[in-house]
C-alpha cells in the first residue's frame, strides 16, 4: 500500500502540476474578449419569408458564467446572459445613447442631482408579478449591503448615501433611492453624473425579484428557481456545459423578437470553437486563436467589431529607474504600436494614440490631434533623453512584468526588442495571474507592467478615472493634483463641451508625464455565420442584446 499511504504526496504533485499547467493554458486574465451586442435601433427589416423556420441561435460563450445574479456577476459572459433575461431601466444603442427599457421615460432635474424614472406599470416578471420601482430599490439595496460583498457595489457610489451604507457608516434609510410610488423611481445623486442614464443599462442596476431571492438564497439563479423580467428566460442550465434561453412570450418586446431559442455552449478552447463553427455546430464563435488569425481573416464569416478598451503598459513611477518623466516618455516613443498590431496581436487592433479609446463619445472633439504616435520614433526618444541630460547607458535594466500568456509574452518580446533599438536594456518576467496582480499592486519592485481596461460605461471619465492618484486601478504610484482636479471638475462641468475640454487637458497631462504607455485599442474579432442577421456587438464590453438577432434561410 505504498501508493495509498503516499497519496498526500500524489495530491501535492497534482497541485504543483496544476499550477504549472495553469500558466500554460489559462489565457490572458483581464483581457476581456467576450462580446457584446446590438442596440434595439437601426436593425434592418427582413421579410418574414426570408427567415429560417428554426429561429435558434447557437452561440459559444467560452466559459461557465460565474454568476448571473445581477448584484454579483461582473464578467462579460455573465453579463451577456443577464442582459437578455433581465431588463434594466434603459437600453443603450450602438453609440451608447439610452432608449427606454423598463422605464418608459425619465427626467433629470435642472441641477443634474435628481433623476426620476417612470415605469410602465404593465411590465411583468416571469411569475406574473408586476415590475415595480421597489424591485429596483431591492436590488440596489442588496448590492450595497455590506453582507452581499458585491464587487460592483462601487458603481452605485454616485447615489447619495450609497458609499456610506456600503462601507458600514450609513443606513439604508439614508440612501437616495425613493420607491414610494410603485411606478416612480426617484434617485438622488452626489454629483452631476452625465452618464448616469446610460449606466442604467449595466447589469449592476438591473432589478431583482426579492421574494425569489429570499426563498432560494444563493440558488435563486438556477433555471428552475429564477424569476426574470427580460425578453428571454432561462429554461436550462447544465453547469460547465450549456445554457438554453427561450423567448419569453409575455414580454413587451416579444412581438419583435425573432429568436425562439438561444443555445449558449461553453467551448473554452478557441481552436475547438473554430472547428465547431466550421463544422456547423455553432453560429457564433467569439474568441479566435492568434495562430490561425491569417486564415480566419480571409473567411466571409470574419467580423471585427469595435470595442472600447485599451491594452497598455504602466510604469511604476516610484521606481528610481522610472521616476523621470523623460525616461517614461522615451520608452513610450520607442514603441512601434502598428508593428505590434500587424505582427503580433494580429486582430486589426488600433494603435492607441491616447489613453481614452477612439470611439468614446466626444473623443473626436477632445482629441483633435493624436498625442502619441502609432509608429516608433527612436530618434525622438533619444533626443528626449539627451535634452534631459540622461545617458541611456547608465539606466538600469527595465523589467517588463506580464501575466503568463502566449499573447502577452509575444507583445513583451516585441517591446523589449524595440526598446533595445533605442538603447535601453530590458528583460521580461512573467507570473501567474493572481500572483501578478498581487505583485504589481503591492510590490514596489514593479517596473513596467501590462494591463487592460474595457469600458463599464461610455464616457471618458471611466478611463481617466483609472489613473486617479491612489485609485484602486492605478498601479503606477503616480499622482497629479491637476489631473485629480480634472476628475472632480468633470463631474461639475456645465455641459459636454466644458467636460470634453477638461478631458483634453487631462490627456495632455498624461502625455507630458507618461505614467502609462498606451499600446493598442482593442477590437472584437468574431466568426459569425452569414445567415445571422442583426447581431451587432456593442462597443461596451458587457452589453449584448440578442432580441434583434434573426436567422435567415440557409
Amino acid at each position, binding site marked *: 500500500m505504498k*501508493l495509498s499511504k503516499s497519496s498526500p504526496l500524489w495530491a501535492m504533485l497534482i497541485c504543483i502540476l496544476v499550477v504549472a499547467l495553469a500558466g500554460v493554458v489559462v489565457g490572458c486574465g483581464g483581457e476581456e474578449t467576450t462580446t457584446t451586442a446590438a442596440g434595439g435601433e437601426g436593425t434592418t427589416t427582413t421579410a418574414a419569408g426570408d427567415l429560417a423556420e428554426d429561429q435558434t441561435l447557437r452561440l459559444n460563450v467560452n466559459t461557465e458564467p460565474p454568476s448571473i445574479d445581477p448584484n454579483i456577476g461582473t464578467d462579460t459572459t455573465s453579463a451577456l446572459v443577464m442582459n437578455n433575461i433581465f431588463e434594466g431601466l434603459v437600453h443603450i444603442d450602438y453609440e451608447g445613447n439610452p432608449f427606454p427599457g423598463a422605464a418608459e421615460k425619465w427626467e433629470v432635474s435642472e441641477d443634474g442631482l435628481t433623476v426620476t424614472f417612470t415605469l410602465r406599470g404593465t411590465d411583468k416578471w416571469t411569475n406574473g408579478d408586476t415590475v415595480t420601482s421597489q424591485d429596483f430599490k431591492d436590488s440596489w439595496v442588496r448590492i450595497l449591503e455590506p453582507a452581499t460583498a458585491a464587487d460592483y457595489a462601487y458603481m452605485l457610489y454616485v447615489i447619495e448615501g450609497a458609499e456610506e451604507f456600503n462601507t458600514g457608516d450609513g443606513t439604508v434609510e439614508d440612501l437616495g433611492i425613493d420607491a414610494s410610488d410603485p411606478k416612480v423611481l426617484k434617485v438622488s445623486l452626489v454629483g452631476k453624473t452625465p452618464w448616469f442614464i446610460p449606466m442604467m443599462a449595466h447589469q449592476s442596476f438591473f432589478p431583482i425579484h426579492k421574494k425569489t431571492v429570499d426563498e432560494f438564497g444563493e440558488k435563486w439563479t438556477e433555471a428552475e428557481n429564477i424569476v426574470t423580467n427580460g425578453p428571454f428566460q432561462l429554461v436550462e442550465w447544465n453547469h460547465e456545459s450549456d445554457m438554453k434561453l427561450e423567448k419569453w412570450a409575455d414580454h413587451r418586446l416579444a412581438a419583435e423578437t425573432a429568436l425562439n431559442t438561444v443555445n449558449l455552449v461553453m467551448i473554452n478552447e478557441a481552436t475547438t470553437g473554430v*472547428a465547431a463553427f466550421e463544422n456547423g455546430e455553432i453560429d457564433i464563435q467569439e474568441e479566435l486563436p492568434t495562430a490561425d488569425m491569417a486564415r480566419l481573416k480571409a473567411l466571409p464569416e470574419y467580423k471585427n467589431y469595435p470595442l472600447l478598451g485599451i491594452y497598455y503598459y504602466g510604469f511604476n513611477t516610484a521606481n528610481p529607474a522610472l521616476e523621470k518623466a523623460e525616461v517614461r516618455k522615451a520608452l513610450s516613443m520607442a514603441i512601434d504600436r502598428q508593428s505590434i498590431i500587424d505582427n503580433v496581436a494580429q486582430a486589426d487592433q488600433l494603435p492607441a494614440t491616447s489613453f481614452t479609446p477612439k470611439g468614446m463619445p466626444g473623443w473626436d472633439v477632445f482629441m483633435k490631434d493624436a498625442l502619441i504616435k502609432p509608429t516608433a520614433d527612436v530618434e525622438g526618444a533619444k533626443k528626449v533623453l539627451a535634452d534631459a541630460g540622461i545617458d541611456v547607458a547608465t539606466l538600469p535594466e527595465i523589467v517588463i512584468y506580464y501575466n503568463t500568456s502566449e499573447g502577452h509574452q509575444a507583445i513583451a518580446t516585441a517591446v523589449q526588442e524595440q526598446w533595445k533599438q533605442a538603447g535601453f536594456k530590458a528583460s521580461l518576467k512573467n507570473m501567474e495571474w493572481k500572483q501578478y496582480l498581487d505583485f504589481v499592486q503591492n510590490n514596489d519592485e514593479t517596473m513596467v507592467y501590462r494591463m487592460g481596461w474595457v469600458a463599464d460605461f461610455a464616457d471618458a471619465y471611466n478611463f481617466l478615472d483609472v489613473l486617479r492618484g491612489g485609485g484602486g486601478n492605478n498601479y503606477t504610484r503616480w499622482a497629479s493634483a491637476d489631473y485629480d482636479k480634472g476628475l472632480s471638475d468633470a463631474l461639475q462641468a456645465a455641459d459636454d463641451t466644458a467636460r470634453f475640454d477638461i478631458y483634453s487637458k487631462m490627456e495632455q497631462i498624461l502625455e507630458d508625464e507618461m505614467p502609462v504607455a498606451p499600446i493598442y485599442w482593442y477590437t472584437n474579432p468574431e466568426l459569425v455565420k452569414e445567415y445571422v442577421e442583426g447581431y451587432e456587438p456593442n462597443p461596451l464590453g458587457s452589453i449584448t442584446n440578442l432580441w434583434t438577432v434573426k436567422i435567415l434561410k440557409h
Partner: protein
Amino acid sequence: MLKFIARRVLWTIPVLLLVVLFTFLLMKAIPGGPFTGEKSIPAEILANMNAKYGLDRPWYEQYFRYVVGMFQGDLGVSMTQKGRTVMDIIGNAFPVSMQLGFQAFLLAVVVGVPAGVIAGLKHNTWMDYGAIFYSTVGWAIPVFITGPILIYIFALRLGWFPTSTWKSPEHWVLPSITLGLSLSAYFARLTRGSILETLQQDFVRTAEAKGLPRRLVIRRHILRNSLIPVVTQAGPLLGFVITGSFLTEYIYAIPGLGRHYIYSVSNRDYSVVMGLAVLLSAVIILANLVVDIVYGWLDPRIRIE
C-alpha cells in the same frame, strides 16, 4: 478479508486529514487570494468578502472548520462560482469525468493488453515490432496533438462525429479514443515487458517440460503471473483517469472535473481546491484497495489474511 477492508477504510481518515492540511497550507502559501482582482476593490468590501467566507479567521480555525464540515459531508461553497457548493460542482462534473475515464480505460485494456500479450509471446516477429511501434507512437504523441488531429480527420473532413461537447454517444467517441490511445500504448508496453519476463521463469519451463499444452501454459502460468504488475499500475491509473483528464476535457469542451483542478487553483478558490484534493485521494485509496483484492484472485500466494 472484511477486517482488512475495514482497517484500510479507517486508515483513509488520517490520510485525508493530512491531504487537506497540506493542500490548505500550499494554497495559503501562494500569493493572491480568491478576491484579488484587476479592478481592485475597496478595503471595506474586501473585508466583507473575507468575513463572508470565514477567511478573516486564523488559519488553524479555518482548517478545523473545514475538517469538521468534511466529515459531515459538507465541503463548503465555491468562493468564485457564486451560489455553488463544492458538492454541486463535484456532483455535476465527476460523473462526466468518470464516464470518459472508464470508456478510455476500457478501450485501453481491450486494445493494449492483448497487443502486449501477442507482442510478448511472438517476441521478435513482425507482430512484436508492430506492437512496439504502436506503443511507442501512442505513448509519445501527447493528447493535445492527437485530439486536434482526430477532430480534423473525423469531424471536419469525414463528418462522422461532432467536434466537441458531451451531449450524446456520438460525442463520446473521439474524446474516449484520444484519452484511450496513450493509455493503451502504455498497457501494451507494460504487458509485453511482463510477459517476456514471465517467459524466462522456471515454472514456465517446468510446465512445458512436463508436457503441458502450450495453450494451457499460457493461460494458467504465463498470463496470470504477467498480469500482476499490470494490475498494480492499472488501479491508480484508473483512479487518475476517472477523476478528470484536463487536456482531453479542455480540447473537447467536456464538462468534467479536469478544468476545476486548473481553474480552482488559478482562481484561488480554496474550498474547491481542497474538495478536489479530498476526492482525488479518496479515489486513489479506493483504487489501491481494489488492486489488493484483485491480487488475491490472481495469485493465491498474496491472498490477504
